[in-house]
């Protein structure tokens, strides 16, 4: 038996009267084709990348301008109707899960690049511009945008801001919050404010820092000014094979102890290697207990010397084989193999749950041993793919949903692993967000007081609780329900995006 898909609220074909009134208010504000009322078309937006949770939004709007977003939000405030902002819908925690009686504000039509300031290395974009488009727009100038979530071809800057997205290279370069200078935001009362500025500092509280990563619960971002970086002169990549993840972890410890901060450090265990090879044939060694990918970048002299040392440290830590992937094609092959890991799990099992917990990196061996024990106890296989440099784990709990009770056991194991991360001094989520998915686990990481203070700040932004309500912070209503199993996002199934 499969765990049923969550359906929240009413999803009847009839439009609730309040939404009908709201829609009339917006006539003349939005173009006719920017308002979607038919149920079948609304259904297109029923989930984000967390496909086990589905709710058909009451109304869908596709504004083209900040003024239109503000008008929609004002109307929502006036009618006390909840609204949810959505970018490309690639989020993995249900942050953009719609409300059945609310408005879904889809920002995918706001995709203009408004300004590129090459000398000062800044770009100003609308929220629907994709992450990859930003780097593409400035590539000719030798610049790029550092955060690189693996859905970057599709995911939007607005969504990145909401989720504080990272990516494989955030170990060295940081997260979205370290790269956003200014935001234009429509607040939940419909007013438009500018937070931050084109400069490194602006007077007053750092509201930008709170908005980034607030998962769309404090306002709707309608414009973002981002910091760009100069492309590094040199990039070096290697894949080292180890008999076990613990041995590979020793190599990471040695690299850190040597004072080297790689651009990225990724690890896959044997099960994950098998899945990746079957899917992408990226040249990983099937017999290896763990594959460690290390990438360095920077000025050539610095980077070359550090790379030589990393190779030595990897050998000393017992690498069975080191493959240098230094030309761009070979490097792309390694990364495509790594990024195929999630999609490739379909070759190992019909279904899986993925977690996103973070542990202090030094407790990796201990944590993996405990995951192995829990896995054995539950009689379910767990494949491990993770950002080994920063301790962000992505354990994939494999199961077969057609087998009685297996989905429930898999879900319980998956949740147990996330909470294990918290017990080890880590976090519930390194990059996927809390959203709908993990809101009920928040009390494992934060006290009631911690959460109450977060709720106080939330009410300062959204006193009426209409801005993406029910996300991030636990609510009795939400936490009484059970989520469904993981299913691949349609774009993921099509191989357009991957999750890291």
């Amino acid at each position, binding site marked *: 038996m499969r765990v049923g898909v969550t359906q929240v609220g009413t999803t009847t074909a009839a439009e609730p009267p309040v939404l009908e009134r709201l829609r009339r208010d917006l006539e003349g504000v939005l173009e006719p084709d920017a308002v979607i009322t038919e149920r079948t078309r609304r259904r297109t937006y029923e989930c984000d990348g967390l496909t086990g949770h589905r709710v058909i939004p009451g109304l869908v709007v596709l504004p083209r301008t900040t003024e239109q977003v503000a008008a929609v939000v004002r109307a929502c405030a006036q009618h006390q109707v909840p609204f949810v902002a959505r970018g490309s819908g690639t989020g993995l925690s249900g942050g953009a899960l719609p409300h059945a009686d609310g408005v879904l504000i889809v920002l995918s039509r706001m995709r203009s690049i408004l300004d590129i300031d090459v000398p000062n290395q800044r770009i100003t974009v609308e929220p629907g511009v994709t992450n990859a488009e930003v780097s593409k727009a400035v590539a000719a100038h030798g610049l790029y945008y550092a955060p690189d979530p693996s859905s970057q071809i599709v995911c939007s800057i607005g969504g990145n801001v909401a989720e504080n997205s990272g990516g494989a290279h955030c170990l060295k370069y940081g997260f979205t919050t370290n790269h956003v200078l200014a935001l234009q935001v429509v607040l939940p009362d419909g007013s438009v404010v500018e937070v931050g500025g084109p*400069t490194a500092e*602006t007077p*007053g509280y750092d509201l930008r820092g709170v908005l980034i990563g607030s998962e769309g619960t404090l306002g709707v971002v309608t414009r973002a000014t981002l910091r760009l970086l100069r492309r590094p002169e040199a990039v070096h990549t290697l894949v080292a094979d180890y008999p076990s993840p613990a041995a590979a972890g020793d190599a990471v410890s040695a690299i850190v102890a040597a*004072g*080297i901060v790689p651009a990225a450090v990724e690890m896959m265990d044997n099960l994950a290697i098998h899945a990746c090879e079957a899917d992408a044939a990226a040249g990983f060694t099937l017999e290896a207990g763990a594959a460690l990918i290390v990438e360095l970048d920077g000025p050539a002299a610095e980077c070359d010397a550090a790379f030589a040392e990393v190779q030595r440290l990897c050998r000393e830590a017992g690498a069975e084989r080191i493959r240098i992937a230094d030309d761009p094609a070979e490097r792309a092959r390694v990364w495509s193999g790594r990024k195929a890991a999630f999609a490739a799990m379909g070759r190992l099992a019909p279904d899986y749950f993925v977690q996103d917990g973070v542990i202090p990196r030094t407790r990796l061996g201990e944590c993996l041993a405990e995951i192995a024990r829990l896995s054995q106890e539950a009689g379910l296989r767990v494949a491990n793919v993770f950002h080994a440099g920063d301790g962000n784990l992505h354990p994939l709990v494999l199961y077969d949903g057609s087998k009685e009770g297996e989905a429930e056991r898999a879900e319980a194991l998956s949740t147990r692993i996330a909470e294990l991360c918290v017990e080890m001094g880590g976090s519930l989520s390194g990059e996927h967000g809390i959203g709908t998915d993990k809101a009920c686990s928040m009390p494992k990481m934060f006290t009631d007081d*911690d*959460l109450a203070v977060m709720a106080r700040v939330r009410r300062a932004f959204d006193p009426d609780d209409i801005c993406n309500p029910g996300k991030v912070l636990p609510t009795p209503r939400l936490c009484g329900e059970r989520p469904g199993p993981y299913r691949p996002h349609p774009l993921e199934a099509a191989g357009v995006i991957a999750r890291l």
Partner: protein
Amino acid sequence: MSSVVGDRPPLPVAVTDTVAPTDVDGIREAFARARDRDLAVLVHGAGTKLAWGAAPSPEREWLAIDTRGMDRIIHHEAGDMTAIVEAGVPLARLQATLAEAGQQWAVDPPRVDAGATVGGVFAANDAGPRRHRYGGVRDLVIGIAAVLPDGTVARSGGTVIKNVAGYDLAKLHCGALGTLGVVARLALRLHPLPEASRTVRADADAAAATATVLDLLAAPLDLAAVEWSSAGGGVLQVRVEGRSEAVDAAAREVAAVVRRHAGGVAVLPPDEEEARWASLREAHVGGEGATVARGASRPGDLATVAAALAEAAADAGVDATLCSAAGIGLHDAILRGGDAAAHARVVARWRAALTALGGSVVLRERIAGVDEHVDVWLDPTAPPSTLPLMRAVKQALDPEGRCAPGRYLGGI
């Protein structure tokens, strides 16, 4: 609960009581005392930045919380490149401890020798030249525990570098000058200490410095710090850090770029480097008889920023020196000579010029009387669109207005 820790710094307001808590409960008790007697609360560490912000209201009665009794380095895990410390830990001691493991908290503000604490640096958002490479204080704090004036202890963030669970409330407290509560503990993101560094210096006026900075930013160099001072006709200093076998090559590349626009280019002898950087870093502090204003602009506007300051200062008969973190566009104007009204005129004009460029000017230390002529934070006729939201945040965390009332922007 109270103990005397070091000398009490000169406070900007008369206090009826001082408490030096040694733990979180001590801060909660201090707030309880303040609530009982309806005292406003001024939190401080070594007191090196107590002059920042608007003057505390003399109409209120005040209680001071001295954080220096909370000076434990609770945890340092070198392998995780994180540390958890209490707010009152002196930065100098923290860095010495971390250095034993070859690490650092990559924040290098001035006044470390005067005892500046981690909490104070955080509350004031005061970073130094190496912010160019490592980001500001906000980027290097990954979690906090704060005590709110109602006694609630609220944590946010965590102790791992990568973490998106919950709201990042540390960002609100960073630079809030203690107006939202007392930060008791901080989790810090650490970096390895570089093996070696080199510094290229050059004579460069504002125009040459601007052109150089933009060329440096466009080059594939990994710069640690880029500072420009208007003193003596203009001096540019650029620092690179890294492996000992690579820093000479990096310095040569920097020098080649600098030579395009500036003269007197030289790589400093390594034994002179530290002293030269210390002197540049401390120059951002005005000292006795000086007024300091912090300006922000795009890096490419440096020449305009410098010219606007020079012009306003000349007209007001004030001596002005500009100390800029030129690569990131943060500038401290040091004003000396002339009276308070003259200093205020310079600040107001400089503020108007930077605001027109999309930037800002905030007063830091100033001579007595400047506040009577110019607002510390902004031009009151053009408040930011976010001011109502900032008030709402203050109201949410400190509804009774107990934490440093009046010190912050817009009277918050």
